[in-house]
Every structure is written in structure tokens, then in C-alpha cells.
């Protein structure tokens, strides 16, 4: 683990350790990753890139599987 650095999740600033996945950071921020087609809030299920429940917009790119991406300093994550 490298030193902690800040990222934002839906504008909320949180500090994460190096090596933290974006999915773990979103869970830490207590935000759902997305809303389902019928409007249910959803959060990570499989943790390994197959279920697609954790997808969110990372640095402007939509539908990223957040469990497969490591946080980097200043990263902006938008969920929903």
C-alpha cells in the first residue's frame, strides 16, 4: 500500500489507500454504484468483474467496471 490520497465519489471527497479498487472506494463512500432498470440501487456483487453491478462513470468514461480499476489521486467517480 502506498500513501493515502483523495478521490471524489459523486463530489464527496474521500481518502483511499493506494491499491484500493474504485468499487471498494464507492462502498466506503456508502454510495450505490448504479440504479437498475426498475430503479433499485445496486452495489458490487461479485467483486471480480463478471456481474457488472459495480459499473459507474470514472473520469468521465461511463460503464466502467469499478472493481477492476485501481483508484488514482484526484479520480472523479460518478455513480447512478
Amino acid at each position: 500500500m502506498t500513501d493515502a490520497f483523495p478521490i471524489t465519489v459523486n463530489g464527496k471527497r474521500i481518502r483511499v489507500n493506494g491499491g484500493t479498487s474504485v468499487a471498494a472506494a464507492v462502498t466506503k463512500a456508502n454510495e450505490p454504484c448504479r440504479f437498475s432498470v426498475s430503479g433499485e440501487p445496486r452495489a458490487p456483487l461479485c467483486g471480480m468483474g463478471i456481474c457488472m453491478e459495480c459499473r459507474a462513470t470514472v473520469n468521465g468514461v461511463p460503464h466502467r467496471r469499478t472493481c477492476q480499476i485501481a483508484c488514482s489521486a484526484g479520480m472523479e467517480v460518478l455513480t447512478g
Partner: protein
Amino acid sequence: MSASFEVVVVGAGPGGIAAATVAAEAGCRVCLLDDNVAMGGQIWRGFRAENAHKYPHGNGFIAWTTRLQQTKCEVWQGWQAIDQPASGVLRLERAGEIRDVEYGNLIVATGARERFLPFPGWTLPGVMGAGGLQALVKSGLDPQGKRVVLAGSGPLLLAVGAGLASAGAVVAGIYEQAPLSKLAGFALALLAQPAKLAEGARYRLKAMHAPYRTSSWIVQAGGRGRVERVTLTDGRKTWSVDCDWLGCGFNLVPNIELPRLLGCRTVAGYVEVDRLQQSSVSRVACVGELTGIGGLEKALVEGQIAGLSAAGRETEALRLLPQRRRLQNFAHRLDRAFSLRPELRNLARTDTLVCRCEDVPHSELRGCASWRQAKLHTRCGMGACQGRVCGSATEFLFGWENQNSRPPVFPTAVSTLATKL
């Protein structure tokens, strides 16, 4: 961009690492592809050279990755195989970038995922796979002080319980659906596997302060906006346990989409291979969980057999066959011990969602005769996960077989695919 290698290995878990290492040591030009941030697959997820010795199985990780790094093997992280545009060529994607790679021999080591079964409340935030929860914790989620319930089936529940407890979580209970009578047979099988026995004992000791109950399974999860409690049953009485997180998975199923796309023949849900791990498709070998759920040691041995075979070292590969047979027997016993009880088919109520991508409830699927009909009529399995979650659930719930795999194997933006048109 296109590249060419004598051996391409897909998946950098234990099986893929072992295959790539021995093939590269034998002098082959090898490329090891992986869609994660770092090597290790699931069991070695989050391990690094400086911290791995602290974890169970960590020494194996250090030994194998050290060996791999001493070779000239190229390791490509973050790439996923999505298609086979021509025979002997794999199309890869990473964050919108496309790359083709040509192979002399291909070794597929894509591992396994958890089987999730739908029950009321399973879509609430805070309900995860047992392995899913472990993966998130290994990826930096702090479990300190969190109350966790683990339920479902398989030895993974104990491993996850031990890991969470040692990371500071309060494991409120571990609930295994299999009856003790079946697990006793499994314990006997463990005696034939000294390394596995030690591993099992360590899990038991660490998880000791958490109740481990057999013949118990989940009824529902409840809470406002996220999981707050779970209800369990042993078939006679039901009870509730408060929790912050529920980890729930019912054994493992292989990530078989890529071998299916390549045309590899499967039997009972696994890829059929010969004694050198060769599939029915020429120049394509499959190793590890793809050929039967057996865990770390089986994957390492099968990976070596496939890697040596791809490098033309058949004699050396054949020496590993007795070891492989022992580990395959263990896999069969594992399968029998943790077979799923029929009551689990009744967990979902009429309004319980079965397909989480398209939000298809159980009631809509009841009248369907097949996986294909369900897809056409309800959109079940047509969403972003491409049936990876609901496919293995409906296989158990309704007995539907999902034999197809179509490119792209993972969702890929049309704009990305268009770069290759």
C-alpha cells in the same frame, strides 16, 4: 496493433501463471493476459511480493511469481479477450483500446466465479458474494468492526470467514446448506490431501469463534435501502441475524464463455480435456477450474501440464499425471459433499428478481421452457453480464442449459468495436 506469440495464456491466476512460467522457462515466447489490475486471479488477489507471506497460500504466490519474473514472459494486465476474429487470433480490449494477438498455442485459465441464487432481498446493497466480499476486502475495503453473515455453500465460506475475522470483522455466523453427514465424507477426503488438511484446519481454527452451522440456508435479506438483517432456516425453524454485510455464494462455476466461443466441447458444464489438457479445439488447452472445480493445487498442476505440453515437453508433462489424478479425485469429492439441496430452488418468490441486469422476476420465467425462450420472451440474460449471474442460477432453478457464447465475450462499446471494422 497486432502481436504474435508461440504461447498465449489467458488468465493470470495460479493455473495461468504456472502455464506461462513453465512454457517461458522452456524457451517459448509467451504472453500472459489478464483482465485484472494485477496478477494473482482470485485466490492470490491483492498479494504482493512484500506482503504475501502473511496470507494463506502466500508463499506459493511468491515462489511462482518470482519464477515467472525470471523469464521473458510478457504480462499484459487489464486486457480482456472478447473475440476470435480468425483462427489462431484473439481480439483483446482494454478501456476502449483494441488489440489482436496471434497464438501458436493458447492456454485458457479463466478460473471460476460464484454461483448466486436469487432470494428475497438479494439485490440490496451490502449483499455480496462470499468471494465477492473477500475480493473487495482484498481490494482495500476495510472490514474493521463490520458485522458479517456468510451463507451459501462450499469451503470458500470458511476461508472468507477466517480472512474477514483476521482483518477485524465480526463474523456473526457461517451457514452452510450441506448437511454434516456429507461434509464428514469430505473431511475423510481431506485426509488424503495433507496440504489441504492443513489449510482446512487453519480456516477452522481462525473462524472458531464464529458459529458454523450446517444444514442451514438463507430465507431472505431485509433492510431499508441496504441489508440490515438476514433470515435463515434449517428447514424446521427460522431465525434472524443482524448484519452490515451478507456474503452469499453457492459453490463455484467455471468462467467458460471464452472456451465456448472458441468451440471447445464441454461436458456437464466443464471443458473436456485430454491428459495434456488439450481441448477438442486444436492448439487450445484449458486448465484449472474450467475442467472441474478443484482449487489452487489442481490449477497449478494442470497449468504446468499445459505449459510443458505447449513447449513440446510432453515427457515432463506426463510425470505430473498421478498428481493431477489425485487432485481431480478431490474435485469430484468436493462436488458431491457440497451438492445443492432442492429446497434452494424455492428461495425466490414470484416477485424476486432473477436477472439483475434486466430486472426479470421469477414469475415471468416460470412459464418458459428453455434459456433461449426466456431470453427471447423476458430479456433474462440479455443484459450487461450476458447471463453470467442469472445463467448459472436458472441452470439450477429450472435445469436450463446455456450452451452459447457470442462475441464480444465481455460488453464492449460499439465505437471500440468499430475501430476494427
